[in-house]
């Protein structure tokens, strides 16, 4: 049959329409817009999902759904006996993405790894100053002081020399800020004076190829057919931005997205009842806690801190805040899934008489006022800060302590807490890499008293010596034993009320398969499929 040109054009149009509409993408409802795609410039989980988990890979990755390390762009590695040199052997045959804006002429090699680290480490690197706010995660993880040098041994081998042994180093290398970029692409951008494009048109080796970002609406990716772990089962991935969690749930119910991230704990029972939906849950690496300022009058006495912990009805608090079964009671500063969790530590039964006696012994007058700073909006580690503060207030009133609750904006609260202003501060922490050091050093070390993040301002030399030694010990068993000891010291001194380790939830349609909720609050869709 012969077609006239017009008919042929129409047929082609219909055909193209049919195919474009027929291919169903995997749509994920996420909570906020990414700041950009040059991931090393940013710290938020939503940006990590949109760039690090889709476009990029690192030398090593976290195994899906765990905090265990698995080889990624590095096939294998060796650690020198002194723990100071790490040699990585790169996987061969890994290709960077081919897009409308970049065609790689070579495969990933040591130059790309070097570029990705030197850019952040070396102030004379041509790309160092292109990041206006610097490299926040690299700085905050102390990489500037930790990395002595990064060298190319040969085309496919790279070595890292550290200034001190650092046991969490491998886990650090699985974090978003160590993503491996294409040096070739960066050089092209620099030569064309288009350095801004690194942030808007990313190139990596990851499971998905960036297609388009419609600002504040959606990010579209297509599957990388040459991905070294095999092409992802979903041809198209769309991250659609719906700020409100009620709206995300309604969109999921209407099948406008197949996965809804961060549902409200309150909604979990109704989602479970819906025949079309299911919920995936996991103990996340988060802790909600109240830091007790150990430098302030009365709270500098461990008996007072113990009295507060004894008067606090933790179970009622956690049930009310998170819903029954949605959070583990806090005992230690980090959840039990991490090594060195001290199981001998426990929550003492509530004992108001003993608490009163301790206060009396410490000479705390009846009606003593303690300030409690808390934030105005809820977050994953505390969905309702005001209610939480009021419950503590009621508990402490029963042992004769008055709590002056100051609800303030988050940034202001942190600023004041870092200066050591409040007696007590209600806050939380989300772990970055599944290592205990990632909780203990930033939150309870003596260094963190100086920088301010140790809101309890608790500097115990024994505890400090134990966590420093543990950080430098490579053997996992030995490390675990050191952390157990450190946590015993923590328990003896009680600088915090460790409240809860909330569970993390992801709601999805029943026909979604292959999604692994991650304890690290990032989301990867490389193995996810809508059946």
């Amino acid at each position: 049959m012969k077609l006239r040109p017009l008919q042929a054009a129409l047929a082609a149009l219909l055909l193209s329409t049919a195919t474009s509409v027929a291919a169903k993408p995997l749509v994920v409802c996420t909570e906020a817009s990414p700041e950009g795609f040059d991931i090393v410039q940013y710290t938020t989980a939503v940006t990590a999902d949109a760039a690090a988990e889709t476009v990029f890979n690192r030398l090593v990755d976290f195994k899906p759904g765990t905090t265990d390390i698995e080889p990624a762009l590095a096939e294998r590695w060796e650690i020198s006996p002194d723990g100071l040199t790490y040699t990585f052997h790169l996987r061969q045959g890994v290709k960077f993405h081919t897009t409308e804006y970049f065609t790689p002429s070579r495969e990933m090699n040591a130059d790309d790894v070097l570029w990705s680290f030197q850019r952040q480490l070396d102030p004379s690197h041509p790309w160092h100053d292109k990041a206006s706010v610097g490299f926040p995660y690299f700085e905050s993880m102390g990489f500037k002081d930790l990395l002595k040098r990064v060298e190319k041994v040969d085309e496919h081998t790279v070595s890292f020399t550290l200034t001190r042994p650092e046991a969490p180093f491998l886990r650090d290398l699985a974090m978003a800020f160590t993503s491996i970029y294409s040096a070739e692409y960066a050089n092209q951008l620099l030569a064309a004076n288009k350095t801004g494009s690194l942030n808007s048109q990313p190139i990596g080796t990851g499971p998905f190829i960036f297609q388009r970002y419609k600002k504040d609406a959606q990010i579209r990716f297509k599957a990388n057919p040459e991905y070294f772990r095999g092409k992802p089962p979903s041809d198209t991935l769309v991250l659609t931005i719906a700020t409100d969690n009620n709206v995300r749930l309604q969109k999921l119910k209407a099948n406008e997205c197949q996965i809804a991230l961060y549902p409200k704990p309150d909604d979990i029972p109704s989602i479970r009842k819906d025949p079309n939906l299911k919920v995936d849950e996991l103990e996340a690496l988060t802790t909600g806690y109240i830091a007790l300022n150990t430098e302030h009058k009365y709270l500098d006495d461990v008996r007072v801190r113990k009295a507060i912990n004894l008067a606090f009805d933790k179970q009622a608090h956690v049930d009310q805040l998170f819903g029954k079964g949605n959070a583990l009671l806090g005992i230690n500063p980090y959840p039990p899934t991490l090594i060195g969790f001290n199981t001998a530590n426990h929550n003492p039964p509530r004992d108001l008489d003993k608490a009163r006696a301790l206060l009396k012994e410490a000479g705390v007058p009846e009606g003593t006022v303690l300030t409690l700073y808390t934030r105005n909006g809820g977050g994953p580690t505390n969905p309702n800060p005001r209610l939480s503060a009021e419950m503590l207030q009621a508990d402490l009133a029963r042992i004769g302590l008055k709590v002056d609750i100051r609800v303030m904006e988050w940034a202001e609260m942190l600023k004041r807490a870092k200066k050591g202003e409040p007696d007590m501060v209600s806050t939380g922490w989300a772990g970055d890499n599944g290592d205990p050091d990632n909780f203990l050093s930033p939150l309870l070390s003596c260094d963190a008293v100086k920088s301010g993040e140790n809101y309890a301002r608790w500097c115990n030399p024994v505890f400090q010596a134990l966590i420093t030694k543990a950080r430098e010990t490579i053997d996992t068993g030995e490390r675990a034993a050191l952390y157990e000891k450190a946590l015993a010291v923590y328990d003896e001194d009680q600088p915090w009320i460790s409240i809860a380790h909330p569970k993390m939830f992801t709601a999805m349609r029943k026909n979604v398969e292959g999604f692994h909720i991650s304890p690290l609050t990032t989301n990867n869709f490389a193995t996810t499929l809508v059946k």
Partner: protein
Amino acid sequence: MFSFIARRLGLLIPTFFGITLLTFALIRLIPGDPVEVMMGERRVDPEMHAQAMERLGLNKPLPVQYLDYITKLAQGDLGESLRTRESVWKEFLTLFPATLELALAALLFAGVFGLLAGVIAALKRGSLLDHGVMGISLTGYSMPIFWWGLILIMFFSVSLGWTPVSERISSLYDIEPITGFMLIDTLFSEEEGAFKDALMHLILPAIVLGTIPLAVIARMTRSSMLEVLREDYIRTARAKGLSPGRVVFVHGLRNALIPVLTVFGLQVGTLLGGAVLTETIFSWPGIGKWLIEAIGARDYPVVQNGILLIACLVILVNFVVDILYGLVNPRIRHQR
């Protein structure tokens, strides 16, 4: 007329400076600087903090920062977002069509139904219908936008499945942004059904955003119509034997519309303000959502210039209304 326009233009200069000063000061009054907010609970290296603040020019004294800001503004430079590192002007141009499209749809909805409700209520004054219409409009006026949006979503989108929950278009369609107006862009696109899909996405947000203006327009139309219907020329028109429809719509509504049109102008501000909430509920990628996120991130250039651009728009609309009024009513033109 020339001196009238010159006088009005002269008033714009202090207004403009007032806005720049106010937004500059207000965003800096909110605690936390952009670097601290970005780092959150994480350790902020003091050296890194100082370097970043210097690079962003935020370590200078406030008057110097303000002067820098005004100098750049005078050169037409709106700066770049601290959060996304994109040009503020480019971001505004990308997002504004979405807000404008929604605002126009809301205005259309509010105009058509508001006028209709106002006319009906005026004609049936004192009746159950009048009380009903005015009662509903009062409820509409007092409706919390967030609640109203969610109720409509749960009923029409989830229970009945008639309309989509949120966004501008279904994720099945990948529409190339040409004009930024989704209804127009879908017409250019080759994807079948995209226009209808975009239109369906517009209905609920337009209703939610248009509810308050609708209530205002309905009440204004009613009182204006009641006044006009008492006029002698209406009686004359009736006496001449004109049909009731002609009396109401040609002689009555046309004259009653003058104050209503002013309300239309004033509603531009309401629509842009209301867009902040409506855009959040419906995941509508417009300037409202953009500004909210910018305030959260202490993105000074976006907040300052985004608000300035919106304020300029409102000023412009009011300026045009002033001029039109001056043209229509010479008494205003001569007021000092």
